[in-house]
């Protein structure tokens, strides 16, 4: 009774304190949002973070749009498209679209953008997003052809996702760094202010074309970078923030009990996994070159407990190096049940009866990383725990200096296994496995236009990856969106915050 009284008064006090400033926000029409991570560059081709995807969808448009509800492809900057042959896609462009700086959108912009990003020397961060395109050519002012390097069945998916159209004249002059500071696109929101590491101000694009994304309703969005979750929540209570996302499940559970906030939980395509240096890049005698050690790691982790106690919400246990809903991500794979005794036995068989000490890297979700490290400790693997920034860890990983790390991948919300498996197992800089057979199969699966053949080869590749225990896939993520009662928004399962779908109640 006492605690109940205490809680209700506390909530009443909080509610009273938030009522005033929150009203002021709706009145001023500004939605205040927090990002947890700093964004390296707003230019969507030159960052690889979720925050970047969110801004990309708001500032720029793709040629095609995938409805997040129905998964149907609808024309956005293109009105129709047609395969001329297996590697040539012809698109009719929408007329009368202008960029935020007044530049008209036409075939030249598409040709320029595609040719620029497809060129490897220009250093687009995630090559996988663009390296399937060879070039683009103009047919007339509102017709273009995109030429592919090879058959690529996921082309439409990529064109509706990470490939957005840039203004040719402006981009030629400003380049990625200029675009990062003064982004110009055709999207529903235009950027009026960028202070790197601090905040971004977006304003509704009044002359937004008749896009399937819908028209922006909230006039102004102020996004601030606030790394600390407690600060975010304190600002939410005081009314200086209206929406926070990626809220850890513990806090979200508590916030859900308060009347003035809406807590929405949605699954995401992000998969959490342990990457192990089976190729021996971090040292020839590296324990992860041994199959039994990798199997032991897989057996040491209690995935179900992680999901039930830490991730909660719509998270699920996974054993595949891809998200189960992705095309080609078959689930008929080797599953490693939680069995610490077996893990110890496998370690002993591999020649480590007393375990070993290894550097364990992580870049996000310290709590999950610690829990995972603790499972490894329990079977005798001592961890030298290192928490780094994402960019720093990525750099180390590319140099092959990471023996084992807790990684996550959100596939850019692309619903195709190639966005994850092929990203990491095709001998790229981030491939810690370098399996030639897997590479061969993935090459077939990625370029085939026959869905059955694709499934067949993804199955081969994924089954080998799980048999060889190259990774220890663990769980899928979910994300909690918390917003004040005045905000009307229904999150989608693809972890993209869509400002254009938000409105005031």
């Amino acid at each position, binding site marked *: 009774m006492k*605690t109940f009284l205490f809680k209700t008064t506390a909530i009443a006090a909080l509610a009273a304190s938030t009522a005033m400033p929150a009203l002021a926000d709706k009145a001023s029409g500004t939605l205040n949002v927090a990002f947890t991570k700093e964004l390296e560059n707003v230019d969507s081709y030159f960052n690889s973070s979720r925050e970047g995807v969110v801004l990309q969808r708001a500032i720029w448009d793709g040629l095609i749009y995938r409805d997040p509800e129905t998964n149907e492809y609808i024309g956005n900057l293109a009105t129709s498209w047609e395969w001329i042959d297996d590697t040539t896609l012809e698109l009719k462009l929408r007329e009368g679209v202008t960029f935020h700086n007044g530049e008209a959108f036409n075939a030249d912009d598409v040709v320029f953008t595609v040719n620029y990003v497809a060129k490897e020397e220009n250093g687009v961060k995630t090559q996988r997003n663009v390296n399937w395109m060879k070039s683009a050519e103009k047919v007339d002012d509102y017709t273009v052809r995109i030429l592919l390097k090879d058959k690529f069945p996921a082309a439409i998916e990529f064109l509706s996702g990470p490939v957005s159209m840039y203004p040719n004249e402006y981009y030629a002059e400003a380049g990625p760094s200029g675009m990062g500071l003064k982004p110009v696109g055709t999207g529903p929101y235009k950027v009026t202010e960028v202070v790197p590491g601090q905040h971004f101000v977006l304003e509704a694009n009044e002359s937004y074309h008749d896009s399937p994304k819908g028209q922006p309703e909230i006039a102004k969005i102020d996004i601030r970078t606030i790394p600390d*979750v*407690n600060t975010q*929540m*304190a600002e939410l209570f005081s009314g200086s923030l209206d929406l926070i996302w990626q809220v*850890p499940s*513990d*806090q979200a559970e*508590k916030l859900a009990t308060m009347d003035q906030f809406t807590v929405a939980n949605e699954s995401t395509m992000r998969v959490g996994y342990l990457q192990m240096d089976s190729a021996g890049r971090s040292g020839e005698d590296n324990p992860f070159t041994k199959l039994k050690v990798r199997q032991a790691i897989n057996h040491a982790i*209690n995935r179900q*407990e*992680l999901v*039930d*106690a*830490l991730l909660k919400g719509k998270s699920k246990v996974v054993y595949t190096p891809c998200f189960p809903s992705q095309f080609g991500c078959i689930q008929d794979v080797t599953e490693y049940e939680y069995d610490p005794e077996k893990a110890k036995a496998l370690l002993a068989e591999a020649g480590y009866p007393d375990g070993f000490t290894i550097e364990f890297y992580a870049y996000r979700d*310290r*709590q999950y990383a*610690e*829990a995972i*490290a*603790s*499972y490894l*400790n*329990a079977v005798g693997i001592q961890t*030298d*725990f*290192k*928490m780094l920034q994402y960019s720093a860890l990525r750099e180390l990983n590319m140099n092959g200096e990471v023996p084992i790390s807790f990684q996550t991948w959100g596939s850019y919300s692309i619903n195709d296994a190639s966005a994850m498996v092929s990203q990491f197992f095709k001998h790229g800089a981030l491939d810690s496995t370098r399996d030639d057979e897997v590479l061969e199969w993935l090459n077939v699966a990625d370029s085939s236009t026959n869905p059955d053949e694709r499934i067949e080869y993804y199955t081969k590749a994924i089954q080998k990856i799980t048999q060889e225990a190259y990774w220890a896939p663990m769980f899928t993520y979910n994300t909690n969106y918390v917003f004040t009662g005045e905000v009307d928004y229904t999150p989608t399962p693809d972890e993209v915050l869509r400002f254009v779908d938000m409105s005031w109640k």
Partner: protein
Amino acid sequence: MSSDVTDPLTAEIQGPTPREMLKARARGHKGLIFGMGIVGLLVLVAILAPVLAPHDPYAQSLMKRMAPPVFLGGTWEHPLGTDHLGRDYLSRLIYGARVSLLIGAVAALISGVIGTAMGVAAGYFGGKVDAVVTFLINVRLAMPVVLVALAVVAILGGSLTVVICVLGLLLWDRFAVVMRASTLQVSRRDYVAAAQVIGASTPRILLTEIMPNIFNNLIVVITLEMAHAILLEAALSFLGLGVQPPTPSWGLMVSEGKNMMLFEPWLVLIPGAVLFLLVLAINLMGDGLRDVTAPEGRS
């Protein structure tokens, strides 16, 4: 005749000896007793950790995470509740005392040896040695400790050894300053001159004439620097650059609890309170020792 001479002497000897007077003053000093009591208790807890801790401080049990402590409605199975990974908070607190005290003691010892050697040398030899030492002290004082420690730990990676070495190599400045000043004073005393006159060697003078007479000051500085090192370790661990998980450290516990601070404040309050208590106790002990031993304290 002789009895006339010896009487006043024996009368004086029959009074309390300096050592007895010291003990009497110490017994009357509440701060000193409180400080020593707490520090003694925590040292005991640290030494007896394996006996006292009710659970394995590393045993994770995700299903029982963030159980509240007894005074907030928890059970006696986990008197101080459990942390974000379901590890027993009391056990982690007890093992954390080891880390804090170990770092405090060893860092103070390393810096004590460095600082005292430099300070005594500067104070006794003067001249060029003094100039060099004074210069080094100034260089050291010009560097902000936390910043340098952060940078070094960031480059070398955080571990118990690295933290101890970094702190040990950074905190010698106060030792050097105080020891230099004390040595300057003492080395002008007649008994030092007398020792020099009878031809005692320099090491002998330093060890048997100077050191015993500056030892009081040394103890006070050691306690202060120990408290300083403990706080710095907590700060580094809080920033994620000190002792690495799963090693229990109070600073790390505060850091791990901070995400839940709004809803489960005890996760931060308990290690914070213990840290506060230890540092307070060490400082009280240092102050008390100064009051009891320093000449100006002798009323």
